[in-house]
C-alpha cells in the first residue's frame, strides 16, 4: 500500500496543504521550510498506531503538546487535521481514507482530544467510523476522546490494514558515527532507532537466508559506488558475539583486506542503511538527506539505486526523501510528479506539485535540479557573502 494523497490543516508550519504522492516522493525546499515537519506527520501517525508504547496522547506529548504542533498562524480555527488516502498501487484509485483531527480540551489539564476520527472504505463507499458525531458512547463518555480507534486493536478491527500500515512506517536518518562508536557512546537509544544505532541488531534479527539474499542484492548495487568492495557479509564476533558487517577491500596487494563496519566510510554505511531499509519492510520509508557524506558522483546514482532496490524488494516500499542535493536531482529519470516543493510564505508553508510549466520545461530537456531547485533558493543567498560583521 502507499499514500497517494496527503492533506493537512494547521500542522506545524503548514496552515493548509494538499498534495498527491507517488511511490517516490522527493521533498525539496529551503532550510527551515518544513521538510522534516512534513515527514513528521507520518512519524506521528506511526507513533499513534504502533502497538508498543504508542498512542495518541503519547505521540502528542512527545512532540511537546498541541501548542508546539499547531501552526502558529492558526487563529480562528485551532484544530489540527490530517487526512490521508491510501491506494493498493500507484496510479490506482485509493481504497482507504483516514482522517484525524484534534485540539486542546479547552479547560482543565488541556489534554489533547480527538475532534474527528473518520475511516472510509473507498471501495464500498462505506464510512466505517465517524466519531464523535455518530457515536453515542463518545458523547456519553468524553474520556474516550483522549484516544483514537486507530491505536486500539478492539476498535480498529475493520481497518486493521490501515493501522498496520501506519504502525510500520520507518524513519531513517542514519548517523554513521553513532553506529561506529556505539560501544563508546553507551547503550542509550531512542525509541524506534531513527539514527540507525541498532542497525546491526536489526540485521542480526533476520533469518540467515533472507539476510544473505539481501546482502547479495545490496553488494551488487553498492559495486557502482564502492567498486573495490567484495563479499559483504554478516558475522558475529567470536568472543563478544556482537553482530558485525564485514567486507573485503581489494587493493594493490594480492590479499585483500578484511574490514568491519567501523572502518567503512560514512557514505558506505549510510547507503547500506538506506538499501537495507528499502528491502526490509512493506510500509512507507522516510529518509532524510541521503546525500550526506557522499561524493557527488555517487549522489547522482541515488535515484537509480532506490529504483533498483524498490524493484528487487519483496514488497515495494513507498519512500519519502528530503534533499537539498543538486546532483541527486540532476537525474533525468526522476518524474516531476515525484517532487514536492515547499515554499515558505508569510501565511505558512505551501507544498506544491510540479506545475504544467515545470513539466513542459523538463520535457524540453531541463532536469529537476535546473527547473525546481532555483525556486527553493533563498533570494538573498547571493548576498550572503556580503554580511558586515
Amino acid at each position: 500500500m502507499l499514500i497517494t494523497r496527503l492533506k493537512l490543516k494547521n500542522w506545524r508550519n503548514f496552515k493548509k496543504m494538499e498534495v498527491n504522492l507517488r511511490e517516490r516522493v522527493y521533498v525539496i525546499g529551503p532550510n527551515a521550510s518544513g521538510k522534516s515537519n512534513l515527514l513528521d506527520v507520518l512519524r506521528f501517525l506511526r507513533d499513534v498506531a504502533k502497538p508498543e508504547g504508542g498512542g495518541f496522547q503519547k505521540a502528542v506529548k512527545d512532540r511537546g503538546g498541541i501548542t508546539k504542533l499547531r501552526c502558529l498562524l492558526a487563529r480562528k480555527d485551532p484544530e489540527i487535521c490530517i487526512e490521508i488516502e491510501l491506494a493498493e498501487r500507484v496510479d490506482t484509485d485509493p481504497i482507504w481514507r483516514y482522517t484525524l483531527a484534534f485540539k486542546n480540551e479547552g479547560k482543565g489539564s488541556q489534554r489533547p482530544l480527538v475532534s474527528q476520527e473518520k475511516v472510509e472504505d473507498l471501495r464500498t463507499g462505506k464510512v466505517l467510523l465517524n466519531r464523535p458525531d455518530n457515536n453515542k458512547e463518545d458523547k456519553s463518555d468524553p474520556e474516550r476522546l483522549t484516544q483514537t480507534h486507530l491505536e486500539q486493536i478492539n476498535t480498529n478491527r475493520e481497518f486493521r490494514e490501515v493501522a498496520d500500515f501506519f504502525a510500520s512506517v520507518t524513519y531513517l536518518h542514519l548517523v554513521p558515527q553513532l553506529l561506529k562508536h556505539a560501544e563508546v557512546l553507551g547503550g542509550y537509544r531512542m525509541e524506534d532507532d531513527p539514527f540507525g544505532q541498532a542497525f546491526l541488531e536489526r540485521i542480526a534479527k533476520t533469518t540467515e537466508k533472507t539476510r544473505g539474499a539481501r546482502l547479495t542484492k545490496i553488494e551488487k548495487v553498492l559495486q557502482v559506488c564502492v567498486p573495490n568492495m567484495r563479499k559483504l557479509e554478516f558475522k558475529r564476533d567470536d568472543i563478544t558475539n556482537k553482530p558485525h558487517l564485514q567486507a573485503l577491500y581489494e587493493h594493490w596487494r594480492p590479499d585483500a583486506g578484511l574490514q568491519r563496519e567501523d572502518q567503512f566510510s560514512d557514505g558506505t554505511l549510510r547507503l547500506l542503511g538506506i538499501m537495507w531499509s528499502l528491502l526490509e519492510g512493506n510500509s512507507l520509508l522516510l529518509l532524510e538527506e541521503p546525500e550526506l557524506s557522499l561524493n557527488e558522483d555517487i549522489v547522482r546514482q541515488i535515484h537509480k539505486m532506490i529504483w533498483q532496490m524498490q524493484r528487487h524488494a519483496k514488497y515495494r516500499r513507498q519512500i519519502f526523501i528530503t534533499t537539498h542535493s543538486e546532483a541527486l536531482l540532476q537525474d533525468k529519470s526522476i518524474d516531476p510528479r515525484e517532487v514536492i516543493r515547499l515554499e515558505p510564505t508569510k501565511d505558512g508553508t505551501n507544498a506544491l506539485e510540479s506545475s504544467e510549466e515545470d513539466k513542459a520545461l523538463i520535457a524540453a530537456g531541463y532536469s529537476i535540479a535546473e527547473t525546481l531547485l532555483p525556486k527553493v533558493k533563498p533570494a538573498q543567498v547571493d548576498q550572503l557573502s556580503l554580511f558586515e560583521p
Partner: protein
Amino acid sequence: MTACNLLVAVEDPLSLAATRKLIRVSEREFVITRIMEAGGNTQLKANLSKFKAASYTLPHLVLTDLDSYPCPLALLENWDATMLPPQLLLRIAVREVEAWLLADREGIADFLSVAKIKIPQNPEAEPDPKRTLINLARKSRRRRIAIELAPEAGSSARIGPLYNARLAEFVENAWNVERARTVAPSLDRALLRLNSFMLNP
C-alpha cells in the same frame, strides 16, 4: 501592456546581475521567473538545444561572454545559433560582461576608487576585461577593494573572494547603463534587441 515572463540563462552571478539591470532599465515589463546559472559559456553552448525547445514554453533570454571567439558571428556559427526561435534571445557581451561594467567609466572609477583616466577608453577592445578590472582593483586607493576583488598575491585563483558579490552590488546600485552603452556597442545592441523582444508574437 502585460508583463512577459522570462527564463534567464547566464554564466555566473555577475552576468545575472547585469541581466537583471538591463531588464530594469529596458522600456519593457519583463519578469524573470526562472534562472539558470550554467557556470560557463561551454555549458551554455551545451544547453542551447534545450533552450530552443523550452523557449516555446517560456521565452528565454541568454547572455554569454564572447571570450576567445574572434567575433560574435563566429560564436553563433560555432554554437549553431544563427537561426534561433523568436522566443529565444541570445546576446553576447564583447568580450566579457566586465567590459560592459568598465564602459561606465565614471561609475566604475568611483566604485574602484581609481582615477577615471586609468579606465580604458574602448572596453570592448580589451582582450581580457576581467583581468583589466582586477588589475584596476589592485591599484585602488581603498585597500578593501583590492583584497575583496583581487586574488591574493601568489594565488593562481582567477578572482578574489567577494568579486562577484561586490560587483553585483555595483551593477545593481551604481552602474549607469545609459552611459555605458555609448562606448560598448554590444551592450547598446543588447538593449535595443531587448526592447523589441517578444513584441510581435
